[in-house]
């Protein structure tokens, strides 16, 4: 969006949000297990997970549409539980924007100001200011149906932000847009948040979107938070098998036996008889081995040093996509390994070629099953 650095007037201070044992049960069904989380002031915090994982419930509880069964939600120290949605003073962007079709862009954006009985002149100035921020100054008198998807999205942002809420909730706001527009809007939303200074809680099912935009991400599964962390940490140090396989691609190996290696680390044998080396000591619980496709190198024939993990196999598939080369190598009758490299890194192989698959023991992640 290339927002002017001084736009937006006095930026609101982002709210600090603390979830303290928030849970939601419908009869015997636990939609949300007791959840405690802290979101820092001004943070861009994403919640991702498969459908039914509880992410929408958590957002609904925050917005006030769903009363929690237990727990507190503290926003800057004030408990929101029991306060109706229209008194929570937070902004929300909905999946399909929910722009009111019978109001113009200016009327839509002015709606929250009208509800707050802001004087007309003052409201007009605020609408004008936020329209500048979202670059829709010329569109004030259009109706939502006359706007493109991206423009509707910007109006929804402006409407949720015009009254300077210190907390913005976003419920898959980009899922209705096509891919190219989505990437552009990701950048716009990120810039918009920096201008406003508001804390953002962002729900999405798209992990790349979450990685591109967020300071931290909470991954949810089955009504529970599986892990919270920076995008990079979640990918490099997944806490369990679900997180490892949900984020990006993962080569996962079951463990049949494991023992301490002579020079430190661990030697692992898989049920298919493959031997793998890891630098870490195994966790206490049951675990699987996870190797990321971009950590793997392919060499022709029998290459690769003795200190590496080394498996041999035949290339079963090669895909070139936007400068990235994906190889798939069959190393055992039932085991295929995904390898990925970008640019000129590494030779490229043909289907049927015999190759060695190698990676460093340090890139062998040992991940708890649960």
């Amino acid at each position, binding site marked *: 969006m290339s927002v002017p650095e001084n736009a937006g007037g006095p930026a609101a201070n982002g709210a600090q949000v603390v979830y303290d044992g928030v849970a939601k049960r419908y009869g015997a069904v636990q939609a949300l297990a007791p959840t405690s989380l802290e979101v820092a002031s001004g943070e861009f915090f994403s919640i991702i997970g498969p459908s039914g994982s509880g992410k929408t419930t958590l957002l609904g509880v925050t917005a006030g*549409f769903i009363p929690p069964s237990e727990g507190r939600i503290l926003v800057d120290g004030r408990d929101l539980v029991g306060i109706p949605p229209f008194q929570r003073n937070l902004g929300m962007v909905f999946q399909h924007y929910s722009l009111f079709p019978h109001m113009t862009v200016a009327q839509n954006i002015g709606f929250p100001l009208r509800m707050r009985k802001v004087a007309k002149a003052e409201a007009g100035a605020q609408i004008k200011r936020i329209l500048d921020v979202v670059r829709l100054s010329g569109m004030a008198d259009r109706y939502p149906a006359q706007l493109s*998807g991206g423009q509707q999205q910007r109006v929804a942002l402006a409407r949720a932000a015009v009254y300077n809420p210190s907390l913005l909730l976003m419920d898959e706001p980009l899922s209705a847009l096509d891919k190219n527009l989505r990437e552009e809007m990701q950048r716009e939303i990120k810039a918009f948040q920096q201008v406003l200074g508001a804390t953002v809680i962002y729900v999405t099912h798209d992990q790349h979107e979450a990685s591109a935009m967020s300071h931290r991400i909470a991954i949810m599964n089955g009504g529970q938070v599986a892990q919270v962390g920076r995008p990079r940490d979640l990918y490099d140090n997944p806490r369990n098998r679900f997180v490892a396989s949900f984020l990006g691609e993962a080569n996962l190996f079951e463990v049949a036996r494991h023992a301490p290696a002579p020079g430190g680390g661990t030697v692992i044998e898989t049920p298919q008889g493959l031997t793998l080396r890891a630098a870490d000591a195994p966790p206490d619980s049951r675990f699987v081995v996870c190797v990321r496709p971009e950590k793997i190198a392919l060499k022709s024939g029998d290459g690769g040093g003795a200190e590496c993990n080394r498996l041999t196999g035949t290339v079963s598939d090669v895909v070139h996509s936007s400068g990235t080369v994906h190889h798939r190598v069959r190393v055992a009758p039932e085991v295929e390994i995904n390898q990925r490299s970008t640019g000129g890194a590494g030779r490229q192989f043909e289907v049927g070629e015999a190759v060695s698959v190698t990676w460093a023991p340090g890139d062998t992640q040992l991940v708890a099953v649960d």
Partner: protein
Amino acid sequence: MGWLAAMRVVGVLRGVFTGAAFLYLILPTFVIVPLSFSSSLYLSFPPPGWSTRWYVALWNSQLYSAAFLHSILIGLPVALLSVVLGTMLALALVRGRPWGSRGLSALAIAPFLLPQIILAIGLYSILAKFGLTASYTGVIVGHTIVATPLVFITVSASLRSADPTFEMAAMTLGANGWKAFWFVTFPTIRLGVLTGGIFAFSFSFDEIILALFLTNTRTTTLPKQLYSELRYNMSPTIAAASTVIIVLSLLMLTAAAMAGRRAQRRAGAGRDMTA
């Protein structure tokens, strides 16, 4: 290109059939229109000559003027009451979504589909208790019962096609329940309410069985007047009155159709980008 030629023949046949079907559906109602311009004293077809004398007779008839006035005086309160009742029912059943709302919706439509003669008998026996059988009240109560389902249907359709997150959005923006309804929900269903109101008025304006049972000579409606006339003489004044009723009904139905179409476009607007 034999296949394309065959497709073209199929298209022509379809056009011919469609035309014939419309003639069959429409002609019997509209045959009354030329009869109303007949110069003859009798309802015979084809008319031996043309004149507008029966419209003049209609215009000068005290009975028809009174009946027209009664129809309006009955139709307007019916439309108003049906709109209030039908809209509130639709809000309760569609937005409130209580347990069994599907069955309740079917029940809300039933009064329109059940035989009106039985409703007339039932209402008559209830109203007789209160001495209301020959007042406006009786026929208004009866028409409202049958017309409310029409409003319920159009408003329910508007509510279903309106995004339910509109109200949630309004609430996050600071509107309490009442303001969310007034500023957001009502405008999105306004055209459905209007369509339903037109349907309700139009139904009341055309209805005859309830009118036969629940009005007397001082509250006779236009269709009842038509019916009474038919039994005594078959003068083309009836045809002229019928033509006027047809024209008014068509105008109302066109208005309702246009409102309905606008409502559809409106409802679509908020979700344009969803597909």
